[in-house]
């Protein structure tokens, strides 16, 4: 019999897969690593190996680490810039020695190694590490990889019989990233810490870390902070026309919305009054829809969790991971927002029918209301959108797991339901030379909204009858006045959206970077004060219109910024106001660092997303075979080295910014 060694990325997956492959009958043996067990059983992998003797074990994340040699351990010498080209060595992490030994030993007794790490870039890299360790035990071992995105039984059995090769391009991409992060991170961290500690005071004890994602992330926070702080409110004026008919009061909105010039508005308003009569130019009544959401991606899940569940993105992701490890949901790190046509979604809906919150809704879908989900434009070719795999009774989940599970299920059911439907009415009038319009919305069928409390769509009063061409004397017309308000500080959802739009971090690591800038005391969060609706377009209620999808086409990023007046018809009920939303505010240290680098005369400041974005694109290029690890390393290192040298040359700018913001002096001179 062929002897096969299977290795998963973590013990929980190894146990689950062993359970499925063995049909629940396996022997368990301890290893020298307390958390890791070896499960042995028999399984028929089909040709070429057929009936085989299997040992299933696991690692716990990465096994190896990259380091500078000992003579680089001291911070003061050699100078940090030497780290850009110092020799580096890969070794087994000290806490993973037992795990590596176990794999090496098991490999020695096996003919084939099957890698069961998570199917993403990081997982592929861990697979590469496992392969290297196994080859130490048995150089000629055959290496295969299982492709799976959830640990549901049929899916796992299927994956076991359709093995593929390990993708070395992805391994290389991660290799490059790890090396760059190490060199760049260490060099700049040492540079900052060594150069800024001597300023003394609160800085003398600090560890001033730099990370190529951390800094742009902080950059967004600082940028918004200044936009809020420097904001200058301005007065604007508008014209409002009110008419009453059939006992309904209708407000007509000015097409020009508002103008920042009192004289101009006064004149235009006066011309309306002089005209006396308004004329109806257009009456329209048409069916409208509020589109059901797209299938759930990691980034969307994190944004929603921070907005509706009072969790951080990090917490949301770790809850989702627990749910995945328990087999309740599919792999939670995905960029895909379209379901494969071949997936049996109805069967997944069926599994949700026992629930007393959404079971009835699921039953209705099963009974014929099911609709194929909308297809987004992103497919990472590795994982489907996040969806429930089996039903989890609330009693088996803890509080936060329950919330995330509920979010995933509701989103999934909403996707499989139908768009909400309504009738929108619009009346346009011309009054003097000015045009005005009024909108009404009647929600006819709520459909997906019934299972999806995270969105709302409210109708307005019905508009009275108007005929095209008729003239009427409006009941009231008035000139209105208002003032612009500053944008809000960034919420975590905003921050994630910005990182996503600018290629900072991957969907899986964004939350970590956000944690990091807080941990380093570069930024902190505060509860949003009870301000009104937010201004910065974080609001998803884009009413009836299918959002114009720009940029990377995820429907994020391109949405109307402030004032989004697209679909006034309804649905603006949500938004700010809700308590518990946390906002990011930079600390004086955070401001000093970003300002310090921004004020240097670089092409691109380290606080801006450009350099990192380029690096991220290069990782992708390695994966797609358009470039190589070596080329990327050479290119990125030389770019960052240049920035390093410039930073050194303009250190005075950075220290001045620290004095100004951290020590609060020099502000006048700055």
């Amino acid at each position, binding site marked *: 019999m062929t002897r096969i060694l299977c290795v998963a990325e973590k013990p929980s997956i190894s146990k689950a897969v062993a359970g499925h492959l063995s049909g629940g009958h396996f022997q368990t043996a301890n290893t020298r690593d307390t958390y890791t067990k070896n499960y042995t059983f028999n399984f028929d992998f089909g040709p070429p190996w057929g009936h085989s003797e299997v040992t299933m074990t696991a690692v716990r994340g990465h096994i190896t680490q990259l380091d500078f040699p000992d003579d680089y351990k001291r911070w003061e010498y050699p100078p940090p810039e030497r780290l850009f080209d110092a020799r580096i060595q890969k070794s087994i992490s000290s806490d993973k020695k037992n795990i590596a030994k176990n794999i090496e030993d098991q490999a020695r007794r096996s003919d084939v190694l099957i890698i069961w790490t998570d199917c993403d870039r990081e997982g592929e890299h861990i697979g590469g590490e496992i392969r290297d360790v196994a080859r130490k035990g048995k150089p000629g071992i055959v290496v295969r990889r299982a492709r799976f995105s959830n640990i549901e039984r049929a899916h796992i059995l299927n994956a076991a019989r359709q093995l593929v090769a390990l993708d070395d391009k992805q391994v290389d991409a991660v290799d490059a990233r790890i090396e760059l992060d190490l060199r760049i991170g260490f060099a700049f961290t040492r540079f900052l810490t060594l150069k800024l500690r001597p300023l003394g005071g609160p800085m003398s004890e600090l560890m001033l870390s730099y990370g190529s994602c951390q800094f742009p992330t902080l950059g967004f926070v600082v940028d918004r902070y200044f936009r809020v702080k420097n904001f*200058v409110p301005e007065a604007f004026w508008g014209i409002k026309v009110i008419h009453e008919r059939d006992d309904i009061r209708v407000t007509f909105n000015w097409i020009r919305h508002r103008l*920042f010039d009192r004289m101009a508005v006064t*004149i*235009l308003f006066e011309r309306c009054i002089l005209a006396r009569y308004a004329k109806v130019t257009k009456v329209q009544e048409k069916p409208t829809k509020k589109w059901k959401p797209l299938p759930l991606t990691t980034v969307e899940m994190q944004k929603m969790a921070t907005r509706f569940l009072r969790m951080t993105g990090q917490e949301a992701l770790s809850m989702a991971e627990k749910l995945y490890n328990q087999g309740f949901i599919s792999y939670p790190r995905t960029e895909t927002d379209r379901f494969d046509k071949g997936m049996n979604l109805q069967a997944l809906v069926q599994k949700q029918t026992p629930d007393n919150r959404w079971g009835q809704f699921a039953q209705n879908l099963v009974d014929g209301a099911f609709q194929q989900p909308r297809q987004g434009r992103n497919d990472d070719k590795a994982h489907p959108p996040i969806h429930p795999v089996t039903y989890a009774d609330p009693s088996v989940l803890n509080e936060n797991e329950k919330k995330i599970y509920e979010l995933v299920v509701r989103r999934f059911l909403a996707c499989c339901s139908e768009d909400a439907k309504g009738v929108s009415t619009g009346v346009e009038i011309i009054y003097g030379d000015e045009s005005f319009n009024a909108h009404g919305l009647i929600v006819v069928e709520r459909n997906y909204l019934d299972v999806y409390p995270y969105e709302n769509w409210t109708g307005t009063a019905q508009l009275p009858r108007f005929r095209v061409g008729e003239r009427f004397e409006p009941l009231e017309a008035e000139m209105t006045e208002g003032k*612009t308000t500053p944008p809000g500080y960034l919420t975590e959802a905003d921050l994630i959206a910005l990182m996503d739009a*600018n290629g900072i971090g991957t969907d899986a690591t964004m939350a970590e970077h956000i944690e990091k800038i807080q941990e380093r005391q570069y930024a902190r969060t505060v509860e949003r004060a009870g301000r009104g609706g937010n201004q910065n377009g974080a609001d998803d209620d884009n009413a009836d219109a299918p959002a114009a999808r720009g940029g990377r086409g995820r429907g994020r*990023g391109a949405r109307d910024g402030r004032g989004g007046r697209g679909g006034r018809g309804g649905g603006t009920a949500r938004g700010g106001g809700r308590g518990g939303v946390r906002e990011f505010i930079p600390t004086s240290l955070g401001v000093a660092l970003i300002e310090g680098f921004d004020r240097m005369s670089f092409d691109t400041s380290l606080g801006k997303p*450009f350099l990192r974005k380029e690096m991220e694109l290069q990782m992708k290029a390695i994966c797609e075979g358009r470039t190589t690890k070596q080329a990327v390393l050479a290119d990125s290192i030389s770019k960052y080295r240049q920035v390093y040298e410039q930073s050194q040359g303009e250190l005075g700018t950075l220290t001045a910014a620290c004095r100004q913001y951290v020590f609060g002096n020099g502000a006048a001179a700055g």
Partner: protein
Amino acid sequence: MAADLPTQIQSALRTHTLPTPSRPWLRALIPNRIPPPPLASLIATARMRLLASDLTTPSLLDPSYSAEHHIPPRLVNNPEIDIGRLPCDVVVQVLDIENLSRSRWEQVEEMEAVARGEMTRGREVIRVVSEQEEGEEGGGDERGVNGVNANEGNGGGNTGAKATHKLVFQDCTGEKVIGIELNRVEQIGIGRTNIGEKWLLRKDTRISRGVIMLEPTYCQVLGGRVEIWHKVWLDGRLARLKEAAGVNDRR
């Protein structure tokens, strides 16, 4: 023969709805050589020079033209008049333009971002490279760094296409008058309208409270610009916006 040239040019320009230059100005324009350059090229030169000139330059225009084609001061200096109309065609030059649909601060923020080499598209921050470096891939991103972009790139609806602008015009007598877009005039825009650009305001253009009501049917862009004015206007725009917004300190 040459004595007739100015007259010929005058009448040709008139058919192009351009203001009529004075004979001395035209004579100075015509090169002193025999034979003189062809009429068509003389007309073109005169037209170009005229459009690039300050209309209030003494003896630029024919006195009889100036006498008939200017804005009657009683119309613009009398804010009591609800609605009046221009009694004749008047050619004016643009001295200033403002977008009234966006707050000054919003425009300041955008100009400062562009100066830093950034633009935003939705949530994405885009690097903008200065004009000279343009021409590689991504050229589309930089389009109009000092131009059209002033009206792009942020929500709020009333950008570019739908915005309402206020202009300051001046006629040949030096009379200044404000114009606002009663209806959208496509040729008006920050980055599109040049300072010193000549406009024809047609007879019957409506005037309210001393302000010209701009409408496509009653106005026509003749083109041109006064280089130095345009430059000064561009250079001072940020400061003017800040002042108008009420910014008193700087970061």
